[in-house]
């Protein structure tokens, strides 16, 4: 069987074959997007056959395997565009924020700030898949007049442009009257307002998620795989996926998702609309000395050809952009961030594809500042999406159960205590593992790394001078930790992370931390 994850920037393919009655990941490859899937599979099969001809012969991996073998495919299309028309700037912002979490790329305008011409222009733009029109309850004569004008404008837009689905949000639903049906005969839809529900906005978010066209479902398949993975491992699992066109964050336990999964186009590696906020966000994490103009140019190049220059300075830049994207994702999902630290964080997506494992672990620890201890793993063969796309839930869980050890590359364990007092020493750490004991002084503000190879388990005994937060509060804590490419990372830096304001010392500090985790970074 083949698993294909056809992303916006990279295409990944994997061979899954049965050995001794159990399905295993046998080979994988990742190449720039746009390559024909058959060409990619032919190359993968020929490489697999060359590496292990006996096994390839056993599995029938001949020249006809590309046609014969079944395929699991996850394809990421660009996020659909939602035109947001609102009476006020506040309404527009609220609707854009919720639609952004539901996987829509939004373009918004308001009567208050932009006027009817701009609203009409926006709704008529090429590529708009749906139009959401929002207005709050009118409490004054002016607001009532704006509501009436917005409703008339919407009727006009729907009449002249019947293609996109019209969605009436909040108080506008009552005012709209007869909006013409769309090209496919679909009547306007009525959605709850951004303030409705508990927590506020959740019903609207679910509504908007259901409207996302099925063709954009690539990243949407991953939460199903996360739920199954949590059930198979009997652990709480968080998936963080950063791709070129969007980010995903989902937290699942054995019982299912612990909150709505967030699909955020704005958390893509480099959004198509490259504003100063995005550029500044990347500059804040950059270890490469670039001014704002040059950073803007480099990011634009990255957007134009995201697979190019994944080495040298380009690799550092890419990881800075991935950190900034992850920061946007974390900032947009405070509800998921407020949950207790998961047992396992799975990092996925093409943004991380070229970075060494330990550097990925550090990047996640830099941005996801949550007190607790979590294991980190990397979906190195990009299998979560294709497996999640499998419609048969029982078969999907069985496949994940067999592949769980293969599909996750262990990056290590991160321990982040909160509430350390500044000083020379905050306590002692003793790690007891198969290779013996390691003892370390815990120095506040620092990063401490303990070698713990993939596959090894150890016990970390932490004895602090004062009480700290680590999921629970205490002074003496004992945690079972798993090894990985990055080993055990004890992160005694501030929660949230505080970095120098000035660019030069900030770059130096980030560079020093990164150098400890990225072998050969200076080559």
């Amino acid at each position, binding site marked *: 069987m083949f698993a294909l994850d056809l992303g916006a920037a990279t295409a990944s393919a994997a061979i899954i074959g049965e050995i001794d009655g159990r399905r295993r990941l046998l080979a994988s490859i*990742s190449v720039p997007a746009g390559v024909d899937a058959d060409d990619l599979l032919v190359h993968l099969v020929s490489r697999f056959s060359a590496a292990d001809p006996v096994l390839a012969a056993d599995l029938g991996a001949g020249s006809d395997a590309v046609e014969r073998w079944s395929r699991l495919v996850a394809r990421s299309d660009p996020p659909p565009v939602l035109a947001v028309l609102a009476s006020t700037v506040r309404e527009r912002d609220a609707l854009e924020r919720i639609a952004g979490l539901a996987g829509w790329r939004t373009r918004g305008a308001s009567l208050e700030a932009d006027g009817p011409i701009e609203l009409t222009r926006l709704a008529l733009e*090429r590529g708009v898949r749906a139009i959401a029109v929002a207005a709050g309850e009118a409490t004054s004569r002016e607001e009532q007049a704006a509501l009436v004008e917005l409703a008339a*404008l919407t*009727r*006009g837009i729907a009449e002249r442009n019947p293609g996109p689905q019209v969605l009436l949000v909040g108080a506008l639903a009552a005012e709209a009257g007869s909006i013409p049906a769309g090209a496919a005969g679909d009547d306007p839809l009525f959605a709850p307002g951004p303030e409705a529900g508990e927590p506020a906005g959740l019903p609207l978010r679910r509504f908007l998620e259901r409207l996302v066209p099925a063709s954009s479902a690539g990243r949407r398949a991953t939460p199903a795989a996360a739920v199954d993975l949590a059930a198979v491992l009997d652990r709480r699992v968080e998936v963080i996926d950063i791709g070129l066109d969007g980010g995903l964050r989902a937290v699942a336990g054995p019982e299912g998702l612990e909150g709505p999964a967030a699909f955020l186009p704005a958390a893509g590696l480099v959004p198509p609309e490259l504003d100063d906020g995005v550029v500044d966000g990347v500059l804040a994490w950059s270890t490469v000395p670039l001014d704002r103009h040059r950073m803007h140019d480099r990011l634009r190049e990255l957007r*134009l*050809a995201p697979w190019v220059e994944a080495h*040298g300075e380009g*690799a550092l830049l890419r990881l800075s952009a991935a950190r900034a994207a992850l920061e946007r994702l974390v900032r947009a999902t405070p509800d998921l961030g407020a949950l207790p630290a998961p047992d396992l964080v799975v990092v996925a997506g093409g943004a991380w594809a070229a970075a060494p494992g330990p550097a990925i672990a550090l990047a996640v620890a830099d941005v996801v500042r949550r007190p607790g201890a979590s294991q980190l793993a990397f979906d190195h063969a990009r299998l979560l999406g294709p497996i999640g796309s499998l419609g048969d839930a029982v078969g999907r869980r069985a496949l994940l159960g067999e592949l769980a050890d293969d599909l996750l590359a262990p990056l290590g364990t991160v321990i982040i205590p909160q509430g350390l007092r500044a000083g020379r020493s905050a306590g002692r750490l003793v790690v007891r593992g198969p290779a013996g004991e390691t003892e370390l002084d815990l120095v506040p503000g620092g990063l401490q790394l303990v070698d713990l190879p993939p596959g090894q388990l150890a016990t970390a005994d932490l004895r602090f001078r004062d009480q700290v937060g680590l999921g629970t509060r205490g002074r003496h804590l004992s945690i079972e930790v798993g090894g990985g490419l990055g080993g055990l990372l004890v992160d005694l830096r501030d929660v949230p992370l505080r970095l120098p304001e000035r660019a030069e010392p900030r770059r130096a500090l980030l560079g020093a931390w990164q150098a400890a985790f990225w072998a050969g970074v200076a080559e």
Partner: protein
Amino acid sequence: MSARAVTRTAAKAARAEALTRAELEASAGSLAQGYALVPSRTLIVPDPVAWFALRPGDRILVAPGDPVTPGLGLAERQRDPRVEDGPPLAGATAAEHPLRPGDWWPGDGHESGGPLRRRRPRTPAGELLQPAGARWRIASGDHVDVLEAPAAGVVSEATPGRAIAVALAGRGLPAAFGVGTPTRGRLERISGEAGLRGALGVGRAGSVLVVDGRVDSESIIRARAMGVRGVVVSGLAGKDLRDLVASEGRQRASLQPLAAFAVLALEGTLRRPIPGPVAALLAALEGSEVALVVDPPMLVFDPPTPEPQRPPPGWVRVRAGELTGREGRWLRAAGVRRFAAGTHLEAAAIALEDGQVAVVPLADLERFT
């Protein structure tokens, strides 16, 4: 980096990978192994369709199916559209010719059904937006710029407030991005370190300049002021792009008629040499009339006679890294290799044009289709 240094690097890479030229030649009998994995870009678009964006208030002068010739007006674009009260919803005109949003309202004189009178119009001309009370709201304005067709073709779509699409006759050379207004002119090439700044003169008026040297926003703005119709560059930095857009905005605000002018960047924001096959095509087009469109960014041309040869099978170009801009021939996929900053990437062995063999990341290569 000098050519000698690049050659040294390539040779070093070749030695480090322990690949001998003979071995590579032996393995390069066919292109099957991995060449299809090289990212491809389109050299020539056979039937280009250009889009011309409109805003509410812009007046369309053509209809779908209309043939257009270069210079024919496609639409009148409002420089500064505003909302006005339009015709009444009910009345003789509304009964005879029901109005719909998006329709063009020609102005006063018609709403009463009577003849045009010599007086200030009661309602200006404009595009109907939506009913408001007893009248229509319209998008209107005082100053218009005529949007001209940059090349011949057939109108395939004309939607008020959105866009006009024209299926262009000829072929298109795609670019990374473009700014400005669609334009046309005689193609002239400028090369050398002096770049655009050193080549400007009154004789360049009416031309589209292809610059394979230094370029900045000041010289592009100066070129526009001297009557140059468009500039094609390899790369244009974001700062220059912003300066250019700001300059165009200032011109627009001055209410003077604007000449059509566009800038196309073939490669992106960084300066790189123009790829060999593209340079050969542009050389063949020198002196002929070409058009520049910005959506999608493309240089549109009639096929030159004789047509330049397409790149041979196996042709590749290095897009990034130390060998940026170098061209060569595909030898074979080289598996996963270690590159700068300790990264491990899919690699390929290529023979550069000077005979040197280099191993480069597969993703840094490109080919034309």
